């Protein structure tokens, strides 16, 4: 079936963290995509782009889309973590029940 390399506690932690990560990072990605103002301070903007308004706006838009993609990539990585943790958790449960 597969190797068991996490104990029950670590796999449960991974499970909970993955669920939280997927939900929060997907939502953050959506908020970045619709360019929410609350996240304005959390986008990468170079110093030189802040000298003109149009430069600032385009840099901000780039930052928003870049971060949206990054959040979704991280959410995807957490989906993988969820699958792995879930598998480990299920294997741990099975072995303790079968005893």
């Amino acid at each position: 079936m597969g190797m068991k390399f996490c104990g029950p506690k670590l796999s449960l932690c991974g499970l909970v963290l993955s669920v939280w990560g997927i939900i929060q990072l997907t939502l953050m990605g959506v908020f970045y995509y619709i360019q929410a103002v609350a996240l304005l301070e959390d986008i990468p903007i170079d110093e030189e782009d802040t000298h003109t308004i149009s430069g600032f706006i385009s840099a901000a838009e780039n930052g928003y889309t870049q971060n949206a993609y990054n959040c979704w990539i991280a959410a995807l990585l957490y989906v993988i973590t969820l699958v792995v943790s879930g598998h480990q958790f299920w294997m741990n449960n099975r072995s303790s029940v079968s005893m």
Partner: protein
Amino acid sequence: MGSLFRSEEMTLCQLFLQSEAAYACVSELGELGLVQFRDLNPDVNAFQRKFVNEVRRCDEMERKLRYLEKEIRRDGIPMLEIPGECPEAPQPREMIDLEATFEKLENELREVNQNAEALKRNFLELTELKHILRKTQVFFDEMADPSREEEQVTLLGEEGLMAGGQALKLGFVAGVILRERIPAFERMLWRACRGNVFLRQAEIDTPLEDPSSSDQVFKSVFIIFFQGDQLKTRVKKICEGFRATLYPCPEAPADRREMAMGVMTRIEDLNTVLGQTQDHRHRVLVAAAKNIKNWFVKVRKIKAIYHTLNLFNLDVTQKCLIAECWVPALDLETIQLALRRGTERSGSSVPPILNRMETIEDPPTYNRTNKFTSAFQNLIYAYGVATYREVNPAPYTIITFPFLFAVMFGDLGHGALMAAFGFWMCYKEKPLQAKKIDSEIWTIFFGGRYIILLMGLFSMYTGLIYNDIFSKSLNIFGSSWRNNYNESDLLTNKLLQLNPDSKDYLQIPYPFGIDPVWQLAEANKIIFMNAYKMKISIIIGVFHMLFGVCLSLWNHIYFKRRISIYVEFIPQIMFLVLLFFYMVMLMFIKWVKYGPDADFLGSSDPEVIKTSAYCAPSILITFINMMLFKTDPNTRPECDDTMYPGQIGLQKFFVIVALMCVPVMLFGKPYFIMKEQKQRARQGHQTIEGTAENGAAGGAAAVAPAHHHDEDITEVFIHQAIHTIEYVLGSISHTASYLRLWALSLAHAQLAEVAWNMLLRKGLMSRDFEGGIFLYVVFAGWAAISVSILVLMEGLSAFLHTLRLHWVEFQSKFYAGEGYLFQPFSFEVILDSAGQGEE
């Protein structure tokens, strides 16, 4: 059905039980768990009580069961939980059967263990012998090897050579010793035998099992060569001292080979026997493990019943047992039914008698709670058990506790985490309870699962009001602030302010909660939130305390303390209302009256300016001036001195009336008590004169209480003075104490912001797609910090402060808390505590 409003009505009852029926009746009452027995033999020693023999037998049985349990646990056999209902307490005659079973099991187990130990010792000896035979083969080969002669020569020294020049006949001993002792052993041998003995040693690779302690130890094989008998005795003594086991080892290689084979066969035989012994032991233990929990319950129940029977009194005819017990008045029917069941079971003909007794003693406090309300009730009891029939603060605590917690914790994200945790615990209640997890921290969290769930839900609500989710704001309805600056202003200024008295603010407030624009106002967000949160804290605090004082009215009415209503309740309410509720009113007036006018934005008309934010007075300064009867000079001539006409006069009036309440609180009650005493003394004199002819004892009784009260009048004065000072000073300090609601919510918001800015932002500053992976890692760290610091630590802190606000600020207004808890005789409680105690 009792209510949670105040504690239940209790009656003291006398119970007459026939001796044969007593056991069964007490067993039924134990299952019911509604009766608290009093000890009618308090002076009697534990060893002189009636049923001491039975208790002793139960103790013996429990000891045997514990021994069995230890063995079962050592082998790792799972003990079956009791399926379905708990078994009932068995009849006294069944006790003998149980005792016989346990005795048999214990003896069998002890015998098996002893045999196993003897076998293991034998096994150890044979194994060591096997290792010796194997390793010493090498030594003897080396000895016979002529190339080794030089070593012999150096060891034996010059005399040996001189003596004959031929190889000397050496004796030897072989044995096994613990590896740690080898260096000291060698040194001792060298010194004691003056270097005339020759030690070879080799380590045994596999650890051997010590039979008595079951530890794995590492040993080494050694062989010592010497010449002569004296050295032999010396060597043997040293081996004895170092607890090395010596084995007879034959010299000739053929003999050794034969011995080795014999040892191998014997080892194999022993292994089989050992295996069979272990199997037998395992089978015995598995059979015992099926029933052991059942037996534990039964034995504990029997013991509990006999302990209770020891509290009873034997009546004169020796046929009947008398008990005194506290019983909730509403449950008398149920108890009668239980007693009838018990009598039927025991086959006795005489029904038990339950008699109500009158008493002046204070009954215990009993509140009927279910799994939801019991957690909140326990929070209240932790501070002090309610006096009998006092108003119970628990039903209000169910809402005010999570609410005050939420005011301090307000964050939608952290509240959601807490609510999810609470929801999981409540949803999986039955399976989690059945698991019986050992950890004390888990027991605390699980016991408060409903509190945690409510705190989480309320925190989500206040998180929406503060518009704070993990330190970011949600813009659901669209902000009411607009940016009207042009490009050049934006490019040349670092910070710009939006003026609410202009087109920057749409004059229509954000529908629910704080406007999301404030999250971006890094310069004055905290100043704005401070003004809001401090006022909210004081408003909530004053209402909470007023509610507490109102609850004391119910206590006065119930305990028929009419005087207290006039000289305690009314002055207290007036003091609080005239001073602090007036301050709350000032806050509301300030919020409503001062602000921008939508039709005259930015106007310089003096009438408009008077109601603009420029003229809003400071509530704190106003209040201080009110108390000190002072008026400050007006620093802003465009503004009015007062918030409404007649303010100064009204404030003076309020302060004077409030101050007049203080002497009423101080002297009112003692004055009335003195009046009452004088009245009673006059009546007492009259009755004495009236009964002097009859010589009745009534006069003496009338004199006694008056005498009793006379002594207490100074105490009443002191008592009342303490209470008044406590209330008056407390009203100021407690009102300020509620500002912790502001302080903790500020701390929480700032911690959340720091966690986001310092941690999660680092993962959001990458320009390329590898930022996704970096964010994946950083998010895990941020999540760990959020849970451990913001949810756990801040949650615990807010919980503690809320508890303090309830215990001190709220309950000191009405709660006496001088009762004692109703602790009924209940098998459930006894079994739970016994189960926890042994773990």
